[in-house]
């Protein structure tokens, strides 16, 4: 299998590919700028990176698996609250608390995924929406643990052992490393047997079944894997902000995640990063327009989706005039050729 660095090198050798990957390079550049510049943009970049992890999970379930979920905020909430409660009330360290949070989210994903994933299309979307709403209500009502709307404050920052990422820049560097790991793992998943099976049944469940793919099992696996990303994002969010309340994991998180997924490029490995950075920074670009800011932001989003329906990650099609042969850097067309050449 071709390695990721080799794929990136091959992509960037061609000047046209440099243009194609401009949105990705821009997103990476903006994060680097935030690390260097500091100030308010650090907070924005931090949120963007956390959402990049959250949306990477959505991208596996929706972009590769072709399913719909409006309830991944539930997994972020479970992990986020678990992390917050264990660190503030029981004095746990950040990493084990996050681990337990992720485990809790995975458990819920398995329990609810098994019956729910029998549904398809809009029905699945509605069922997952209900899960998100139920978890939100629990966060509001279970005041003895979650402290309701008041929320939990004083959550420690990210850290390992005695070391804590106390400064904004340190947090941003840690988040950047986590996002790199998230992207790499998503790339590996996309190029694995599992990833190919997901893309297959997103195209045709019957055709995938007829090839021996256990669609129900892989759907559940994709749901659980995507819940892991959402859960990690949920825990990161509470440790970066230092506070959690039900609103943090409300419907706004789902809507933001969807917007980032589609603006960035659904199905493309780098789409979540591009989308998260663009959606977090785009409103700031229009700040000078004051009361017209939201209108212009809305129009900009509509224009993006009209003229680049595959998101920023597929912008190459705008000037190529043909479908991008490689709308994700994850594609590895040489696999079969390599196997053929490897034959003794």
């Amino acid at each position, binding site marked *: 299998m071709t390695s990721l660095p080799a794929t990136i090198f091959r992509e960037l050798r061609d000047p046209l590919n440099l243009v194609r990957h401009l949105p990705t390079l821009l997103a990476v550049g903006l994060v680097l700028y935030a690390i260097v510049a500091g100030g308010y943009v650090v907070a924005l970049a931090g949120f963007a990176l956390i959402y990049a992890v959250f949306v990477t999970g959505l991208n596996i379930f929706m972009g590769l698996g072709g399913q719909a979920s409006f309830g991944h905020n539930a997994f972020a909430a479970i992990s986020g609250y678990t992390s917050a409660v264990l660190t503030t009330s029981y004095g746990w360290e950040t990493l084990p608390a996050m681990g337990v949070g992720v485990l809790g989210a995975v458990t819920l994903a398995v329990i609810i995924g098994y019956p729910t994933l029998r549904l398809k299309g809009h029905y699945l979307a509605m069922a997952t929406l209900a899960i998100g709403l139920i978890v939100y209500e629990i966060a509001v009502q279970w005041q003895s643990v979650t402290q309701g709307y008041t929320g939990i404050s004083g959550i420690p920052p990210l850290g390992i052992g005695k070391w804590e990422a106390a400064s904004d820049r340190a947090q941003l560097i840690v988040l950047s490393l986590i996002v790199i790991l998230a992207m790499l793992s998503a790339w590996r998943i996309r190029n694995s047997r599992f990833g190919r099976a997901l893309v297959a049944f997103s195209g045709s469940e019957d055709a995938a079944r007829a090839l021996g793919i256990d669609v129900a099992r892989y759907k559940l696996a994709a749901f659980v894997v995507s819940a892991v990303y959402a859960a990690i994002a949920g825990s990161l969010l509470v440790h970066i902000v230092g506070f959690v309340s039900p609103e943090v994991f409300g419907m706004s998180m789902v809507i933001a995640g969807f917007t980032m997924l589609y603006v960035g490029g659904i199905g493309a490995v780098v789409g979540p990063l591009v989308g998260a950075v663009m959606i977090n920074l785009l409103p700031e670009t229009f700040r000078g327009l004051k009361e017209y800011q939201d209108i212009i932001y809305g129009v900009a989003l509509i224009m993006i989706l009209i003229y680049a329906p595959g998101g920023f990650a597929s912008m190459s099609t705008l000037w190529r005039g043909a479908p991008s042969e490689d709308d994700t850097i994850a594609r590895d067309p040489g696999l079969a050729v390599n*196997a053929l050449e490897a034959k003794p």
Partner: protein
Amino acid sequence: MLDVKQLSARYGHVEALHLIDLTVGANELVAVLGPNGAGKSTLLRSIMGLTSSSGRVTFAGTALPRRSASAIARRGVVLVPEGRGIFAPMTVAENLQLGAYQIGGGGAEFAARLQHVLSLFPRLKERLSQTAGSMSGGEQQMLAVGRALMAKPKLLMLDEPSLGLAPKVVAEIMETLGRLNAEGLPILLVEQKAPLALKFAHRAYVIANGRVAAEVNPREIKSYDELARYYFS
């Protein structure tokens, strides 16, 4: 090899198949003919476990599970579905890899199967890195058949492989199927174009209104009017 007994299937209140009996022997190419809506595709989908049905289907002496296509595929029964069912956003190479899903995407066994498929359809070799959706209809059909062959089937079922293709391409695909059959691969072929199917088939079933209207020997058919009578029986 394949023995279908009393197979019935319904879509709600509509009976799509009624007590179908059908066999495919070792090394046989059996055609299923019939007009639109006769139940030919439902027959293949029922055998494959993609549509709920009643009756008994045995393959190589053991009963096939009725609602688990993936388990049936693992037994070596592979379907090339109507409309090809290729995975359009994936490359040709990835589609072929998925065909060999059960053995993973690499290794000597995979390479041997790939070489076999590419020797049958050399055009796919030139298209390995191309997205499957951007190929012509004929190439997509070759890919669909090639992908099925990557699974190393013990029985290959094809649903209307000639649909929407130019005659020259159809001939190329059918000749390949004939060659595979001659090498010992049993084939169950659903086809509307009766003359085409009968040219290669050892036996044929005519299905009308979800029932077997006739079992015919292609070499004994004097005229297609005779077949047409069964179509409208």
